[in-house]
Every structure is written in C-alpha cells, then in structure tokens.
C-alpha cells in the first residue's frame, strides 16, 4: 500500500497560472518535505514542515509556497509558474529530522509541464 501519495502524477499548467500539487501520507510522520528535481539532477529541497513549523530553504523562490493543514496532507503552491519550473516535484516524509529516525519515504512524484 502506498504510504506517500502524490496527486496528480502528471500536471500540465499554463505559464503564469497558479497550480497546486498535493501530497498525503499514512505514516503519521512529523516531517514532510517538498523537493524539485529537474532532468539528470539531484532532488533539490524547497522546504519542509516539522509538524506545523515551516522551514524554507534560503534559495527557494517566493513563487513557491506550501501549506500543511494537518499531519496527513501537504500542498505545494506555485503562484506563477514559469517555463523553468517544469520539473518532477517530490514529496517525502520522515519521523524526525535528526538522529536515527530520519529514513525518508518518498512519493512517486508529480511531473509538472508548463506550456
């Protein structure tokens, strides 16, 4: 059974049109992460939540926002997608961010196309 579920798997959006990607988890983990991964590159961390505490990476553009209304769900909002935002977006969870309980579980990803 899938433990980290991302919807949709594929998303096409228009240049400049806001888009929301969703992630849900059944693991009851404290931490949820959003990554951006472009072709042939490593995943790049955008931000993460520890419970309700939001942690933004210093170089994450303001165009990217996130919401975590409860433990199970986390959303990635791209306010005005540009062509450079076309990528695979990965959601992950972990129990903790330090020490042993940091094994991360990733979703299948949402591939975003901007036209």
């Amino acid at each position: 059974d899938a433990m980290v579920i991302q919807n949709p798997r594929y998303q096409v959006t228009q240049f400049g049109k806001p888009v929301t990607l969703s992630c849900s988890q059944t693991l009851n983990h404290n931490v949820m992460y959003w990554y951006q991964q472009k072709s042939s590159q490593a995943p790049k961390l955008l931000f993460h939540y520890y419970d309700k505490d939001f942690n933004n990476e210093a170089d994450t553009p303001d165009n990217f926002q996130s919401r975590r209304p409860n433990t199970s769900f986390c959303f990635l909002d791209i306010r005005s997608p540009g062509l450079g935002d076309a990528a695979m977006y990965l959601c992950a969870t972990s129990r903790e961010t330090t020490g042993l309980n940091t094994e991360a579980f990733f979703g299948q990803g949402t591939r975003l196309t901007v036209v």
Partner: protein
Amino acid sequence: LAKTTQPISMDSYEGQEVNITCSHNNIATNDYITWYQQFPSQGPRFIIQGYKTKVTNEVASLFIPADRKSSTLSLPRVSLSDTAVYYCLVGFNNAGNMLTFGGGTRLMVKP
C-alpha cells in the same frame, strides 16, 4: 553541512559486487550517513543508514572507517534492476534537516 563527493558514474556487470565510495571530509560528530537509490521517474528509496563501522541489511552493506571521512556502499551480486542513481547523504543543512542530496552516482549494470 558536510558536503559529499561521489563518482558521477560507474559501470558494472551482472553478478558482480559493486562498491560506491562517498567522501565527506567535514562530517560532524553527530552526523549519520544515509544512502538512497533512485530509479528514473520515481522518488528516491532509502537503502541503508549508519554511524560507524559496518551496517548490513537485506539489500546492501555500508562500511564506515574509524575517521568517518568516507563511506562505502556495497551492493552484492548486482542485477540489471540495480541500474539506478545512488545518493550519499550526510549531515544537516542550515535548517537542521539532513535530507540534502548531493550529486549522486549513476550505476549502469550491463548483462
């Protein structure tokens, strides 16, 4: 943040043992070393995690020398399905989050 250095790519043949080494010269005392595997169009998958000496699970072994400035992921008897990118992660970023990926090693297993 302990930066990691891995070979960009490696080739192997089915049935061989593959060892991928990761350098992390400025690893901190409380840092763990974690390896992930990623197939195309899928999210990374946790393989193994360790702090020192040797860790083994059903998939791989992780060797960490006493100075902890490097680590080696060992995959016994690889098959074609082990063709993937392997990432070594160490330490924390400024927000205290250890899930910052380095470049990764692209392993190609040939028949």
